[in-house]
Each structure stands twice: as structure tokens, then as C-alpha cells.
């Protein structure tokens, strides 16, 4: 009976309820942060994590060192940046999902479904296999991934535009085709190079998504991209609300849809390119998280965006922890874990939308 009344009150309407929801998410994220930093092959005591963070950020040994140097280096240089990166990747992918859903007015759209992730992945694999863009130094994979993302979304938009107008159904269908094309390209590059070489192993492993290459540098890079994009997207939140009504209605309500669509595409491409370059292809986060968040806080973007960022971050921290313990001592690709959650969810959504999943002309 009690549970029933909770469900009836969703989505949360009151401001206080919304803030409570976000606070709970932040607490869960802190819990997940500690758990995720603890799990792994080396045993670590929970209190060490906080102490090491304090010591490192202050730059002095405020807490007496009760741990070995190797433990400290594992926690500080490997696990902590990895957990933060997991949060950022989850948050960023959720944002991309929200953007693509507003662009296509379709709750099934996300960068993975639309083929942008595959495009970014092909660009990154090209760089790994052939060593292109070496002028960009350690950022060469990021450059390759962003270019791949740009190409894939341009192709998807070009194919789906009829009379300079893009309908949702066409965009989603084009996404499927683009995704297939770029995945084929990636596979071709890998098999052309013969299987078995180290590069192929890296590329293959990375195609399925992983955060094992997390470093502080990468974390800061993604953090700055995510922060800038989040602020910009938040600026557009009013326009995104109106865009959900359809292009025609948005025009009549005063939205400059051409401008907003270009902004969405640019933001989404940059974000996806950056994320894929550090984490590889991680599917379905952008699909599952916005959907679940909407059922809690509603469709209004000024509420949806902060909550989805938190929930997406939490989800990926947990998935990353699962990927490290599920088949320990080796590691499961992160994309496999998210797909195990996401793919059934995708199927359920398609079934649920069976009657309403049709394009808008």
C-alpha cells in the first residue's frame, strides 16, 4: 500500500522532493566511490582512501602512513582517477542521450543507437592501428575519436534529411545503418592487421569499453569537457523542453530550431568523441539513465539534467566495480556489463513503445 502511494506520486513534483532525490543520489555516489575504490586484487582498508586523498591534496602527511607505498600508488594513481572517470563517463553519456532524445523526439535515441559511438570508435581504432595524428601527442586518440564522431553524425544527418528536414524515424534508421558501417570499418581495420598483435588486442578490448587506462590527465580532460558541455546544455534546457513537442510546435513557440539543432549536434559530437576516446564504446547508458531519471523527476530539462548526470555517474561507477570483480582476477569489458543491463531495457522499451513508436513528419 505504501509502495503504491510512492509510485503514484512520481514524477516528483515538489522542489523539496527533488532536492532530497538528488541528495540521496550524492550519498549513494559517495558510498559507491568508496566501494569501487576498495574492490580489486589488493586489499585496502576503507579509512586509507580518505586519508590518502587528504595527504595527497594537502601535500603533506597529515595522517600517519599505515600503508605500503605500493598500496598508496594503486589507490592514488589507478583506482581514484578511475572511479572519478567512471562517474564522468556515465554523466557525459547520459547528457548525450538527453540531447539526442530531444533532437529526435524519441526516447530510444542515444549516441550508441545513432552510431556516433561507433564512428568515434572507428576513428580511435584507426589512430591506434595506424598511428595517425601523432602531432597531437597523447591526445591523438581523442582527436581521432572526435573526427570519427563528426563523420558519423554528418553521414547520419545527410542520409536522414529530406527537403532539408530531418524526421526522427529517418534519423534513427540512419543511425542503425551508420553504426553498422563504422563497426564494419573498425572490424576491417582490425582483421586487416592480422589478429594476435598487441595493437589488435588493445583495439579489441577497447572497442568493448574499458576504463583500465584511466589516469589523472585523462580524468581532468574529460572533467573539463563535461563541465563546459553541462553548463551549455543547461543554458538550452528551456529550448530542449519545447523541442520535445516536435519541430513545428517548437517553431510556433519561438524556438530557433536550426540554431538549437546545430548546437545539440556539436555538443553531442564533442562529448561523445571525448568520452569514447578515454573509455571506448559503452552502450545504452544514454538510453537507460535518462529514461529512469524521467520517471523520477519528469521531462523538464532543468530538473532532468542534474539528476541524470548524478544517476549516470552512479550507474557507471557501479558497473565499473562489477566489471572488475565479476571475473576477477581478470577484468570484464565495461561495455559488456552496461549492455547486460541496457539491452533488455532497450527491448522492454521497444515493446512498450510498440504502439507509439512512429515517426513524425
Amino acid at each position, binding site marked *: 500500500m505504501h509502495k503504491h502511494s510512492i509510485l503514484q506520486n512520481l514524477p516528483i513534483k515538489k522542489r523539496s522532493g527533488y532536492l532530497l532525490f538528488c541528495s540521496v543520489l550524492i550519498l549513494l555516489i559517495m558510498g559507491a566511490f568508496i566501494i569501487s575504490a576498495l574492490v580489486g586484487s589488493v586489499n585496502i582498508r576503507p579509512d586509507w582512501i580518505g586519508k590518502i586523498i587528504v595527504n595527497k591534496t594537502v601535500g603533506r602527511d597529515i595522517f600517519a602512513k599505515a600503508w605500503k607505498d605500493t598500496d598508496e600508488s594503486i589507490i592514488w594513481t589507478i583506482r581514484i582517477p578511475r572511479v572519478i572517470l567512471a562517474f564522468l563517463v556515465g554523466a557525459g553519456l547520459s547528457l548525450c542521450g538527453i540531447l539526442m532524445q530531444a533532437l529526435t523526439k524519441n526516447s530510444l535515441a542515444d549516441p550508441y543507437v545513432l552510431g556516433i559511438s561507433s564512428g568515434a570508435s572507428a576513428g580511435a581504432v584507426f589512430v591506434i592501428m595506424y598511428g595517425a595524428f601523432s602531432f597531437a601527442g597523447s591526445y591523438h586518440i581523442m582527436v581521432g575519436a572526435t573526427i570519427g564522431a563528426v563523420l558519423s553524425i554528418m553521414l547520419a544527418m545527410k542520409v536522414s534529411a529530406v527537403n532539408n528536414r530531418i524526421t526522427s524515424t529517418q534519423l534513427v534508421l540512419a543511425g542503425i545503418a551508420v553504426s553498422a558501417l563504422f563497426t564494419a570499418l573498425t572490424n576491417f581495420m582490425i582483421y586487416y592487421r592480422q589478429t594476435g598483435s598487441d595493437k589488435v588486442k588493445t583495439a579489441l578490448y577497447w572497442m568493448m569499453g574499458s576504463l583500465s587506462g584511466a589516469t589523472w590527465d585523462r580524468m581532468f580532460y574529460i572533467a573539463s569537457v563535461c563541465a563546459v558541455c553541462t553548463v551549455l546544455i543547461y543554458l538550452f534546457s528551456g529550448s530542449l523542453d519545447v523541442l520535445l*513537442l516536435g*519541430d*513545428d*510546435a517548437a*517553431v*510556433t*513557440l*519561438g524556438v530557433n530550431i536550426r540554431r538549437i539543432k546545430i548546437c545539440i549536434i556539436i555538443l553531442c559530437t564533442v562529448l561523445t568523441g571525448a568520452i569514447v576516446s578515454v573509455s571506448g564504446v559503452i552502450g545504452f547508458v544514454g538510453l537507460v539513465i535518462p529514461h529512469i531519471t524521467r520517471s523520477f523527476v*519528469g*521531462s523538464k530539462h532543468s530538473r532532468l539534467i542534474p539528476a541524470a548526470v548524478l544517476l549516470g555517474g552512479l550507474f557507471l561507477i557501479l558497473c565499473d566495480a562489477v566489471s572488475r570483480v565479476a571475473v576477477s582476477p581478470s577484468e570484464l569489458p565495461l561495455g559488456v556489463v552496461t549492455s547486460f543491463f541496457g539491452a533488455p531495457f532497450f527491448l522492454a522499451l521497444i515493446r512498450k513503445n510498440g504502439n507509439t513508436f512512429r515517426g513524425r513528419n
Partner: protein
Amino acid sequence: MSKLKVENLDYSIGEKQLLESIDLKIDEGEFVGLIGPNGCGKSTLLKNIYRVCQPDRGVIYLDNENIHSLPGKETAKRMAVMVQENNVEFDMDVLEMVLLGRYAYKKIFADSTDIDKEAARKALLSVGMEDYEERSFLSLSGGEKQRVLIARALAQQAHLIILDEPTNHLDIGYQYQIMRILKEQHITVFSSIHDLNIALHYCDRIILMKDGHIIGGGVPAKALTPQMIRRLFGIEARMGKSRLTGKIQVEYLPD
């Protein structure tokens, strides 16, 4: 004073000429109906006016200003539009839906102000949906949704409202109710209308369209002759005065 003026408008898709040399003028405070058979270009004309389609040639004036020189938000403050929205997939509650009508008035980063909420509530009140504020939009019936969309257009507080078949798919009670709501607003209304009796009852003036041209117009009771109805719709009809209301009505005489 002319509220809306269309001069010499042409519109085509590919080789197909959908609208040709359209001229029309709507004065402030008029209730004007746009009438014609399916596929004659009514919706296309309205879409050109509310800026979803770009005309090939011709100018549209809103308050004597070229509409294409106005920013989108300015247009939305002067002209509200109500079209069918059957494909909204993301749910929101009724008040949120109506508040979207206030988009043009919003400042960046600002949430809905009290003025916005007041305008939205007033609009809901005038369509008789004031008790539905917190209901989910997608759970409403067709007629209720339509009334909420009208409320959204009214919340724009524009002096001109354009409607594309506002009563389509509605039962007869709702059809008359919606037209009555519009009539009560004391704003300029330009609407495509299917039902000739509704046009006769509510319109100050009608504009008749066929095959992408305007072929006539005027006061409904005078412009809608049996000959004109035959020409537009290919059906025999007879005009007569209702014994109860004293208004002119159409009676159809199919073969």
C-alpha cells in the same frame, strides 16, 4: 487595421506547385475560417504563415511587418498557433505543458515566473481545465488534450491565433465548445474549418480554397452557396434557415 496580410504567395515542393498567388488580409478582431476540400493547400498555407514552410515568393505581414524579418520569439508573442500534436512521446503535467507557451517570454536560466504561472492558470481557466493542472498530459482524452493545447496558445498572450483544424477527431460537443472558447477570447482568429455549419455559426468571414488558389470568400451565409459547395466538395447541398436559431444552415443532399 490589418493584423495579417499575405501578398502574392507561391509555394512548391519539387515540381509540385502547392500554393499560387495567394492574397489575403485579416483585420484585427475578425474570426476568419479557411475552407476547402482535403489537399487543397489549407494546411500548407497556414504552415507558410506560421513559419514552418518557407514561401518561394511573396510576403507575409504580421502587424504590417514582414514576418521573416521578425525573430522567432517576437513572432510567438504576436501569433499563437494550435496544431494537432499526436506524437508527443514525453509526458509532462498539464501546467508544464501550458507553461511551454511562455517560452518566448523567458529569460535565459530563469524558471517560470509568477507572471508566467498566472498567464498559464488564466488560460486553463478559460478552457475549463483549471482542475487538471497536475494531471499527466498523455493520460488525457482527445478533447481534453485539445483544450490544453488551446490553453497553451492562449498563454502566449498573442493577439492573433492560428488554428489548423482545431476540432478534428473531436465529438460534436467538443467541436462547438472549442469554437465557443475561441470566440470568447476577443482576439483575431484564423482557422481552417471542416464543418460548414460550424463556419456558418462562428465565422465573421470565410476564405475558400481549391487546388492551391483562393477562389472566393466573404460573409459565410453569402459566400457558401449551393453552387460553391458543389464546386468545392462535389456534393449537392441546400441552404436554409434553422427554425430554432434563425441561423443559416447547410443541409447535404447526397445522391
